[in-house]
């Protein structure tokens, strides 16, 4: 009974989000699209942090590489073809993930965090200093790609609502794919590797291969998010690959809750709204100008009080209630 109730609730939520643009102005639709893209991006990192136990501080590299790839390759004169641009952008991100993953998965713990940061900074400086990506000013995507076979246009993303639904669809597909993946044998294996890698090696799993494939898949999904981000504003620049971006999406996964897949989505929603809220004069008046201060304090407090993140909150409360009940002797056993 409980699971059907939950299914109905999720379906209702999806329909509500799908119909949202009818009721809001252009700005807030744009904000929701941004949230959906970051949710997809955070889901891709969740596959690494939550499922495989690999904490990467360089995940924005794949996000940025796909965004640059689609912008560099789409024609100046008209919209590119989605069938070609999306797979190629994702493949470009996966290629970089394969090369850097094969190297960085040789290290562990804090060194792994630092090596992923190093490889992301490498990609950042390639776009920041050289002319390939138009330097620090970035480059423009003049026309959003469209889904076209021959000259039959199935899906024209230029229409805001179509692009909105397309982004929502991509995010939901990614969530479903990851849920399926985690229930599969591959998912069971990387769960085992996260909990106890030596045990899995002694059982017969070549754990390096599993971790590398998980790293490449996560890179590819981050590439999808990067593609959508480039299509959203039609503008890409090196800051997409900066370490602050990797830090932000890692924050979304941890604050959302790395224990559950959908924790990443909650993290993306809450953090983007927090950022937006702290900046609006309406809510914070004069303090809005210094939103970094309130946002920074909020991060410190939230990470401190929510070790398992928002998704883990019900469990955390239940555990505390359970402990409290055990601590004080219940009156009945006099």
């Amino acid at each position: 009974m409980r699971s059907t109730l939950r299914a109905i609730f999720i379906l209702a939520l999806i329909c509500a989000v799908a119909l949202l643009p009818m009721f809001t102005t252009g700005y807030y639709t744009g904000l929701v699209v941004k949230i959906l893209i970051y949710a997809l991006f955070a889901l891709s990192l969740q596959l690494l942090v939550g499922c495989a136990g690999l904490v990467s501080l360089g995940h924005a590299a794949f996000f940025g590489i796909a965004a640059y790839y689609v912008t560099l390759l789409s024609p100046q004169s008209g919209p590119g073809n989605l069938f070609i641009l999306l797979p190629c952008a994702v493949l470009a991100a996966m290629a970089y993930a394969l090369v850097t993953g094969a190297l960085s998965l040789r290290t562990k713990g804090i060194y792994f965090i630092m090596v992923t940061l190093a490889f992301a900074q490498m990609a950042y400086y390639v776009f920041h200093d050289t002319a390939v990506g138009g330097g620090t000013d970035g480059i423009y995507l003049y026309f959003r790609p469209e889904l076209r076979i021959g000259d039959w246009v199935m899906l024209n993303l230029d229409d805001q609502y179509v692009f909105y639904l397309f982004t929502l669809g991509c995010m939901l597909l990614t969530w479903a794919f990851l849920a399926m993946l985690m229930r599969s044998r591959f998912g069971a294996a990387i769960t085992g590797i996260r909990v106890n890698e030596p045990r899995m090696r002694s059982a017969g799993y070549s754990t390096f291969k599993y971790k590398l494939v998980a790293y490449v898949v996560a890179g590819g999904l981050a590439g999808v998010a990067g593609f959508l981000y480039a299509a959203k504003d039609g503008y890409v620049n090196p800051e997409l690959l900066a370490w602050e971006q990797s830090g932000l999406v890692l924050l979304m996964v941890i604050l959302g809750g790395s224990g559950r897949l959908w924790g990443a989505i909650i993290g993306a929603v809450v953090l983007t709204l927090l950022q937006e809220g702290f900046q609006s004069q309406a809510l914070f008046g004069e303090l809005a100008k210094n939103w970094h201060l309130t946002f920074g304090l909020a991060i410190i407090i939230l990470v401190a009080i929510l070790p398992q993140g928002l998704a883990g909150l019900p469990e955390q409360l239940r555990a505390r209630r359970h402990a409290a009940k055990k601590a004080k002797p219940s009156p009945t056993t006099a």
Partner: protein
Amino acid sequence: MKHTLSRTALAAVLAFSAGSAMATVKVGFMLPYSGTYAALGEAIENGFKLYVQEQGGKLAGQDIEYFKVDDESNPAKGPENANRLIKRDEVDILVGTVHSGVAMALAKAAKDSDTTLIIPNAGADAITGPLCSKGVFRSSFSNWQPGYAMGPVAAEKGYKTAVTISWNYAAGKESTDGFKESFEKNGGKVIKHLTLPFPNVEFQPLLTEIASLKPDVVFTFFAGGGAVKFVQDYAAAGLRDSIPLVGSGFLTDGTLKAQGESAQGLLTTLHYADGLDTPRDNAFREAYTKNFPNLPPDVYAVQGYDAAQMLAAGLKAVNGDVSKKDAMREAISNATIDSPRGTFTLSKAGNPVQDFYLREVQGDQNKDIGIAVKDLADPARGCKL
């Protein structure tokens, strides 16, 4: 009791309906209020508001309502900040910005949402080139212009070889390309172009390289805090006496107080200078110094002032009805602006056609010592208007 209530309600309705004719014009400022260009953003806003104040607080009978967003000179936040003004505050006119990268994002957002945009500084050639549109105007210059104006001056002084140096971003590259084009047309040769990432100010390695290349002259493009540091380091490295330094006017505009002795005698070219001694300019400088005592009436204030004049010209033509976009833009495009720098008109791509003065730093002023190039128009390469 009920009776009076209905009369006040009626009055309120009347005021409200009348108000729409009297509706305010919403102007969105997207300027840098933090970072290396903070002072420039402030000067532009002061210049704009000074002109509106001089017209009695109204342009063509319309009150002006201001919305402000700090773009932090960060291209990454360009589209987001632009949408905050366009979609959330739904401004009628956008005024911004200083940094070329951010200005390009702003121009694209304005073009996509068909909002009129007046650019008070950023000289990115693309804005009046491939990105040009009938709703985008500029009250300042294209990066190409000041650079191009210095070429003939340097050639005249007999310099044969030159090194150009600037930040590795659009404004730097286009300005030094402009100089290279005119300098080489007049027989000179640019032997090397040195760059460093924006807003890095670690000039030491590059100054060392300039000394080893020993060119006849060094042309540079820096502005704001970067310009202050570069001129000081150039002097500290002892290059000022051995290798003459020239640049576009932004090297010394609004920064002379901070640069002090190290900037004396520097030659720059710009569409504005101190000591023009025309009645229009003196009136502007007097009004500006009265309202903003400790701020110099520099080129940024003039550009902000002229942006307001362009808007006023547009609004007069449609007597304040902002919704008639095409008519307003037509009027702005054809307007002749009586600017403190001297009257100028707009090219079809929306860029000022104006004189460029040669200036020399004397004390804390960029003294005008003659016209470098008369009525220089931007070639607007790539604009299909």
